């Protein structure tokens, strides 16, 4: 697969993953770009025996976690609200809420639910994150419950 093809196919997916992790549009865009730079560098080493999607998501996930090292910025939950929201006025409030809720989860939960919502099957998620399929299933179930709960609480306010 040529780099350009990968870039076109995966840009939005990777951006959403980064956005779920940070809920900061600019930062997510930077992180997505970083991911593709790594993909570009590593592509010659890619062997066809593994799935290209899994391979790219692994890079993206690891890059997200590496952000923690660089994080001199505010944690997403403490970001001044108007800054994050201003950039996304054209986006439905429910969508904004979903990303906000996800970015408030534990780091690995953010990754797992983002992959799940991207319709990646659970066996693949397990192989991206490096945990068992059973554990993945349990985690996804719990995270979804948590998110629904958050939406409910928000609706009551």
């Amino acid at each position: 697969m040529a780099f350009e093809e990968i870039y076109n196919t995966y840009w939005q997916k990777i951006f959403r993953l980064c956005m779920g992790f940070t809920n900061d549009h600019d930062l997510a865009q930077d992180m997505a770009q970083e991911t593709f730079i790594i993909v570009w560098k590593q592509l010659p080493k890619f062997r066809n025996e593994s799935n290209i999607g899994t391979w790219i998501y692994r890079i993206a996930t690891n890059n997200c976690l590496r952000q923690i090292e660089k994080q001199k910025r505010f944690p997403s939950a403490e970001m001044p609200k108007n800054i994050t929201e201003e950039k996304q006025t054209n986006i439905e409030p429910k969508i904004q809420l979903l990303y906000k809720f996800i970015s408030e989860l534990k780091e690995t939960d953010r990754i797992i639910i983002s992959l799940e919502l991207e319709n990646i099957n659970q066996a693949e998620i397990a192989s991206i994150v490096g945990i068992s399929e059973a554990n993945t299933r349990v985690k996804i179930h719990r995270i979804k419950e948590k998110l629904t709960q958050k939406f409910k609480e928000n609706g009551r306010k």
Partner: protein
Amino acid sequence: MDASNIDLNELWAGQNSDKPVLKDLHNKMDGFKKNYRRKIIRTNLLLVLTSVFIVFIWVYFQPELITTKIGIVLVILAMAMFILSTTKSLELFNKIDETDDTQHYLKKLLAIKEKQLYIQTTILNLYFVLLSLGIGLYMYEYTLLMSTVWAVFAYGLTGLWILLNWFFIRPKQMKKQQQKINDIIDKFKNIQSQLNQE
């Protein structure tokens, strides 16, 4: 808002971002490469310049005693070691496999961080010891030319400076470095424990 019939997948897919043109990405990549090269040149330049300066002293002043020469070598060694270890420590990250699964990636990242911690502490100690020894030896030849009072004064002052470095500046710097790495190690360990929770 009715939460029971929210389609998370649909909401999720509603988020989009303009894809930067590929050319921008390529420019960024070139920028990264240039930056990296510049950084390496800068550190090595510093090393070469200091060494040239010290060698110049050696040639120009023609020290006669072996202690002076050993002193000079120790000081160069201290600086070379310090700079090389900093570069080495950065290079550790280039070896990490970014395409590993998260569990393994975290494990390797933690191992690197702990190694960095070790390198920094050991090298900083060694650096101070070599530098102090080097300066002490280097001075010997020149203090021989002074009167006893001045010689004692010169060594006293240098000794004081070295003690100040060892007991105040070194621990302070070490603490700062360690805290930075330890913070990161803690965060990664926390993520690791998240993964292992059932």
